[in-house]
């Protein structure tokens, strides 16, 4: 047993401790049992997972490549609309809808990434914002097809048939939570592998010193493009899950405000840490849920949170912990 544990420990990425990992997964697996006792509801936990996945996808670019996208809501929203439109107009199949959403968002990101991979810093960010809004306007004004301002309705997630078995995720919040958790686990497992691979190490090298990376012969633009593209695929997957969670796709999922939320989640949790965005998403989603039920002036509160985080808390929760141990 102990040798098996040691073997697992040796394979863990640095900065990750086995017991923390066990703790995180234990917490995530038992959410439906303890969250209602604390006054939450299970759909809120699903929302945290979905936003957490989107923010972790963004963080692959922001924290691990050092490139700022302020337009990731576009790929999230395209994932949501891709899944929703497929369910509504094409086939009543949850897996196919998810695949369509992921491809829709991911490919849009890949194509756009190609155009802007040479830009840097705020200018890169500005391009991502502007391009993201394109999809918002499209969803907003193409009323007949997308439902316009009211969002896309009249679709719902379908039971999944695997051979003779049927997994009915169409009913029950808890069941859908576990479905989301399974997809989440698979996705971030893949993300972890990618970040530990030579490719992921190369991204870190670019983040730390782009010029040196270039001198070492690393094709920097191509790596930034790939990182952008992969990050969009993850965020689109989160978007597809979001459409399934709500049985609804909202044009606001494409709006740059949501991109801002993803960035602030990442920063609150700690950008450069693997689990930070999930923690940030949990805090942000719960805080937003609480504040918007308490006051109509929730915008001020959210805005003040943004400002306070930037001025006094720029490293984020896990970033601070990391600094203390380093």
């Amino acid at each position, binding site marked *: 047993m102990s040798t098996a544990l040691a073997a697992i420990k040796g394979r863990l990425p640095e900065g990750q401790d086995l017991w923390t990992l066990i703790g995180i997964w234990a917490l995530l697996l038992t959410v439906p049992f303890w969250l209602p006792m604390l006054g939450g509801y299970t759909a809120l936990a699903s929302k945290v997972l979905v936003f957490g996945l989107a923010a972790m996808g963004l963080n692959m670019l*922001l924290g691990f490549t050092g490139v*700022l996208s*302020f337009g990731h809501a576009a790929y999230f929203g395209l994932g949501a609309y891709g899944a929703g439109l497929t369910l509504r107009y094409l086939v009543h199949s949850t897996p196919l809808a998810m695949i369509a959403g992921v491809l829709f968002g991911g490919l849009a990101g890949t194509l756009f990434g190609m*155009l*802007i991979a*040479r*830009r*840097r*810093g*705020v*200018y*890169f*960010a*500005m*391009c991502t*914002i*502007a*391009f993201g*809004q*394109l999809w918002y*306007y*499209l969803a907003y*004004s193409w009323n007949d097809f997308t439902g316009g301002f009211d969002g896309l309705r009249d679709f719902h997630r379908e039971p999944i048939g695997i051979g003779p078995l049927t997994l009915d995720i169409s009913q029950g919040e808890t069941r859908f939570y576990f479905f989301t958790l399974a997809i989440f686990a698979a996705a971030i497992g893949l993300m972890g592998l990618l970040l530990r691979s030579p490719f992921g190490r190369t991204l870190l090298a670019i983040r730390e010193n782009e010029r040196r990376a270039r001198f070492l012969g690393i094709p920097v633009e191509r790596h930034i493009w790939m990182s952008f593209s992969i990050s969009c695929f993850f965020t689109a997957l989160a978007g597809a899950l979001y459409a399934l969670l709500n049985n609804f796709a909202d044009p606001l999922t494409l709006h740059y405000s949501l991109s*801002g939320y993803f*960035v*602030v989640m990442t*920063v609150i949790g700690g*950008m450069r840490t693997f689990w930070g965005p999930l923690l940030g998403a949990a805090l942000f989603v719960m805080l937003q849920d609480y504040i918007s039920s308490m006051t109509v*002036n929730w*915008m*001020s509160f*959210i*805005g*003040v*949170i*943004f*400002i306070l*985080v*930037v*001025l006094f808390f*720029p490293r984020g929760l896990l970033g601070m912990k990391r600094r203390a141990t380093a």
Partner: protein
Amino acid sequence: MTQVILFNVTNGLIIGAFYVLMALGLSLILNLSNVINFAHGNFLALGGYLAYTLSPTLGYWGALLISPLLTALIGVVVERTMIRRIYNRDPVYSLLLTFGLAFVIQDASRYIWGPNGLPMGLPAMLGQPITENLFFITWYRIFMVSIVIVTVVGLFAFLRYTRVGLRIRAGTLDLETVATLGVNVRNLRTFNFAVGCLLAGLSGVLAAGQIGLNPNMGDDLLMPSFIAIIVGGAGSLIGTLFGGLLIGMAAALTTVVYPAASEAVIYGILMLVLLIRPRGLLGEEGMFS
């Protein structure tokens, strides 16, 4: 048909003029301080609302003069207390900060002036059309465009012929060297930010007379202004000027043919520019890349 086209050309000119004022302010701040001011549209709304509040006492002309200055003053306070702290940090922080600021200002405007639209009173003379035939061209539209032209020419003359303007232009290219030469860069950046906010405030007063006031009146202008900057080319104010006019005109002329696509055509131009000439029409190669 001629009337329809003329009507839309006038509209395009006016929309373009707003894009230009907004985008020039944003561009000034972006070039010198490397900050994207997400709250720029909210400074615009502030300018409009301040004029609304001040015009009963100062009259329209007084308000037109004073409220942009007040907006600039608020800009100075914001820059000194918050934005200055993040100049040397990763760009993600400046975006988050101004994004949060946009939320706060918008909510505050809603709290103070109410969520519903308010009409902005204009002097009676400005409300008249210039001739019977061209009923859609009011004196106010002529007035608005002339103010924008005077402001833009004034801004470029200021940057070209004054010492401070020279420093701002030099700082855009190499701020470190400018600081080494003994220029107080901190004050320069504050001043530059204030000028940006002044332009936003002025567009706010002008827009209020055209479309009325509401707390998120600046939001619809923000994205096109970003696009005007990208299309015109980062680092070039002349580029921003052309970018703003180009997309304003393109959007208005598309309205003649196919109204639903007027927004989409702006994004079409953006994609085209990124594809064919990534640095923007008049952008310097190497800036921000």
